[in-house]
């Protein structure tokens, strides 16, 4: 195709060059944050890729604790003593509650690895997140935000993603009470609390999560999982069915490429 003008052709060439060398997906992932659930990990090619951005949405504010715990457990379950950087604004404690270290210990995580960074406003949150993702040696960087985050546009998101890729850190964006917006994230998840498997005397059981893969750069999206956290084994596993929980097959697309065709 003949370009209408010389500058435009130059720009196109430049974009092609950039895409060939510097795109976020141009480098294979250095590793994966695995859940320990075989089907989940293999569906994603090993788990959530290290050195990329992953978004966790809790559309309803009440599911915030589930989304936050899922992100934290995913980052902490690898073991080791690399710190987990958790960035949030100061008013998040009043809104969603303070991060409670004994609760993390109860989930089998090590609260000593947690480094909590509280900023005054979302602008500073973004600035500190940029610094945090550029620092190698963390288990993951969790950036918790509330509601719409207009400052996190495509440019800001791409800057974060490039920083994370260069330093090899995993950025987990925790978007509470927010609807998905366009972004450069590798994966995007919707997380909802699921009814737990009842224990004796109908007591609430281990944490259960309903996950939906909303978007994935490396493959098809739309897959749903329902996972339980087993803190003794430090893995996620299928929610063991019991009479109180509906079977999942009806809701779950086993093969994302058209289950009807199979």
């Amino acid at each position: 195709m003949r370009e209408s003008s010389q500058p435009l052709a130059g720009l196109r060439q430049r974009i092609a060059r950039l895409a060939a060398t510097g795109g976020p997906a141009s480098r294979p992932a250095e590793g994966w944050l695995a859940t320990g659930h075989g089907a989940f990990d293999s569906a994603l090619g090993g788990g959530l890729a290290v050195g990329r951005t992953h978004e966790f949405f809790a559309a309803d504010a009440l599911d915030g604790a589930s989304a936050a715990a899922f992100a934290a457990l995913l980052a902490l379950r690898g073991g080791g003593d690399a710190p987990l950087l958790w960035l949030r604004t100061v008013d998040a404690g009043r809104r969603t509650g303070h991060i409670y270290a004994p609760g993390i210990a109860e989930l089998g995580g090590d609260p000593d690895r947690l480094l909590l960074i509280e900023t005054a406003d979302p602008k500073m949150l973004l600035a500190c997140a940029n610094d945090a993702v550029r620092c190698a040696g963390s288990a993951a960087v969790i950036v918790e935000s509330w509601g719409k985050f207009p400052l996190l546009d495509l440019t800001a998101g791409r800057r974060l993603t490039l920083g994370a890729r260069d330093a090899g850190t995993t950025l987990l964006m925790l978007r509470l009470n927010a609807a998905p917006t366009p972004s450069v994230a590798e994966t995007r998840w919707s997380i909802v609390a699921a009814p737990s498997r009842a224990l004796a005397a109908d007591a609430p059981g281990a944490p259960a999560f309903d996950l939906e893969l909303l978007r994935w750069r490396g493959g098809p999206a739309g897959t749903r999982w329902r996972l339980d956290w087993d803190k003794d084994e430090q893995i996620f596993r299928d929610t063991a069915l019991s009479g109180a929980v509906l079977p999942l097959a009806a809701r779950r697309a086993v093969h994302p490429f058209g289950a009807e065709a199979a």
Partner: protein
Amino acid sequence: MPLADARAQVPDLAIVAHDPVLDLHWLDRLAQGCTRYTPLVALDAPDGLILDITGCTHLLGSEAALIDDIDRRLTRLGMTLRHALGPTADAARALARYQTRPAPDEASAIRRLPVAALELDAEATTALVRAGLKTIGDLASRPMANIAARFGADAATALRRLLGDAPSPLDPRVTPPPVATERRFAEPVASMPHATQILAELVGEAIVELAERGKGGRHFRATFFRSDGLARSIEIETGHATRDAGLVMRLFAERMDALRDPLDPGFGFDMMRLAVPRLEALAATQLKLEGGTVRAAHQGAAMAELVDRLATRLGRGRVCKFAAVDTHIPEQAQLALPAIDAAPPTPWPAPDPGEPPLRPFYLFDPPQVIEVIAEVPDGPPHRFRWRRATHAIRRYEGPERIASEWWRRRDNGGLTRDYYRVEDDRGRRYWLFRHGLYDEKPDPRWYIHGLFA
């Protein structure tokens, strides 16, 4: 009395040689101890201390309580104390040393002091007494010009200081920082980039001195003295001792950017000083021969630097690590400590295997009030209303009864809390409690204290 005479009278007299230097050291140590009462402590050698307690008395209740406290502590050290309070340093000093007769108030106490309190030479004091001027009050009633003409300007100044008419500034004892460098300029430095460059040079000099001593700095303070008399200090702290000039300058730049009221050279700085008040031993770093990884060492340093940088930008209390506290009260079971202080890791209570988490992931502090429908008196909640939404409870576990810490409370009281772990019909798990039993309180309220994963 000569020593020989004293020995003749008391044969087993214990004798210690007088050592003025040791006395001065001891006085200095006492002065350092007195900084618990006020930062402004001045030495009045050889045997006195002057404390500026302006605005410090409320810490111990009252002036009398403060004096009692000083008296008690110094008596325990074997000291004998004469003390006095005065409106100025010189007045207080004279009252402590020369007051013999009680007086209704401070002003008349000063006027009743003997003229010796002026501490003129012996000849002048004798001359004053011979002239019939025995007290400060007698002297103050004469015209100041006559006193100056007869006994010299020093006498007049001493008198005016005692009466509070002339200022009697205190020369407080300050602990000099272990390492300090400074630069004075013949021509004031009016541009900030130039000032920053000079600060970098000062940091370089301080680092050389630190390296010679085998130390690293944890705390750096840069003071900018403006030519119009204002002085402004900027401080940074690091989590580990450092001798990295680049790091220190980056932190200073971070701090200056974060200033709400930016550093203004005005007509220029005529002096800059860099002090390192806090040092720690820092050996030269070297990788192990058997293959310490450069990457691991580098990553640890990068993380420490990130903590320093964020703590400098946000404030030291905004970058935290958690420490466990041994208590049953849930909201007191954790402490968020500044990460820059690098407390050793604390052991967290190990969870029971096979049990679901018994403590929430997010905790509300303070707990939030909810409306609950529950059986009276001890029944579990059935439904509750929180933030304008009603939640029907499907499953629950409880109560977990947590009593107040009556052994710590002055009234030996406090309400018992009954905690319930509940799950609503959409699978969300909450931590609710009833504050008080029905026999403790007629109508106990319910609160939500946390959210489980």
